[in-house]
């Protein structure tokens, strides 16, 4: 790999759950061909699944909404961000709460009564960095950084 530049992938896909599996598998296979371990690739796949699922379910107000993902593969880490086109205020509040909860220590994690909301906590556990930015019209960008484990 050319250490001076990352491999950059950009994907824009319809806000439809049908696309999550092909996209997350694409990310895992891309990490595999760039010599990341199968464990790293699988864990990244889990994270991509969760973030894309949130973008579709909570961040797609219009019926023609799309989800944008940009992945950067460095020799020592994998970074990606997912942009959605904005959800309802209650969806955004729920996401903010989930991000805050994700900051708790792993041993404090408890499943919510309704059995939901653990996704971002798992993302946090498996990543070095998770950041959420809210833009105009409640558009959301979630950025995740994972460092290579086998260096």
């Amino acid at each position, binding site marked *: 790999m050319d250490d001076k*530049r990352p*491999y*950059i*992938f*950009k*994907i*824009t*896909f*319809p*806000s*439809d*759950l*049908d*696309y999550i*599996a*092909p*996209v997350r*598998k*694409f990310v895992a*296979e*891309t990490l595999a*061909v*760039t010599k990341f371990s199968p464990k790293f690739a699988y864990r990244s796949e889990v994270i991509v699944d969760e973030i894309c699922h949130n973008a*579709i*379910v909570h961040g*797609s*107000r*219009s*019926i023609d909404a799309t989800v944008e993902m940009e992945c950067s593969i460095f020799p020592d880490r994998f970074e990606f961000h997912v942009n959605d086109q904005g959800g309802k205020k209650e969806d955004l509040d729920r996401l903010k709460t989930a991000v805050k909860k994700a900051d708790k220590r792993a041993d404090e994690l408890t499943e919510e009564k309704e059995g939901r909301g653990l996704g971002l906590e798992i993302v946090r556990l498996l990543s070095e960095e998770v950041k959420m930015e809210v833009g105009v019209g409640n558009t959301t960008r979630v950025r995740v950084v994972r460092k290579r484990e086998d260096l």
Partner: protein
Amino acid sequence: MASVKIQKKPVDLRPDLTMWKIDGALDSDSIGYIHREFESVLETEQNFLIAEMSGVSVVSSAALGQLMGCKQMLVERGGDLVLTGVNLDVKTKLSAMGATKIFKFYNEMRSAINAYHWEVERKSEKLNLSFPSELQFVPPVRQMVSRISRQKGYSPRDSFRIETIVDEVCNNAVEHGSLRDKKNIDITVTIDPKKIELEVINASDPDQTARLKELSKSVSKKAPEAHLDEKRGRGLALIKMLSNDLDITFSSQGTSVHVTKLREE
């Protein structure tokens, strides 16, 4: 008296679509109520109904039969009755009664609306991907496109052919693309229930323009020759054979390959 309540209301994301918000127990006493509510749906031009069932605690076989009748009538009108938000307990029981083979279940309202777009309106969907111009990335790309076509109901045979086309087009884009400026390759996949269209754009190497035009000429012939005595050079012939339309254009921006593949099965 029926211990269930059905509220008919427009879907948030698509106000022209109707949903039933069902709460309570769909038992045998509810059959008449379902029938009356459904008749009011039939009076309109609606042919697609989404039943939101997160508030349903039980579905009896009699009520299930009534819903099947409603579905049948909508299917005959070119639409469908689909179920969303069914809780795990109810879904397990419905599955035991064979309902999962008859009804489509969706976890989210958005998925049900997407199904309407795809199956009733037959709208196309588009995915754009930009990836580095290296051969190692072609297998993940081709597999992703193949998986999308499978996910959208294309047969394994169609999906395999689509995968082969993507593989050939992307390999060509990497091999014949410009080595000077390390621009990404852009692929656009447009899929609908009848066909899939692929557009692959790459930066061209000016030194290879003459060769690329020669390749393009071979494609424009009705039956491009596959040079059987040579080790390579069969890619375009293969794409031509597997697809329904192939068009290659050159410009200062690069090379654009457009392929249309009709769904066969």
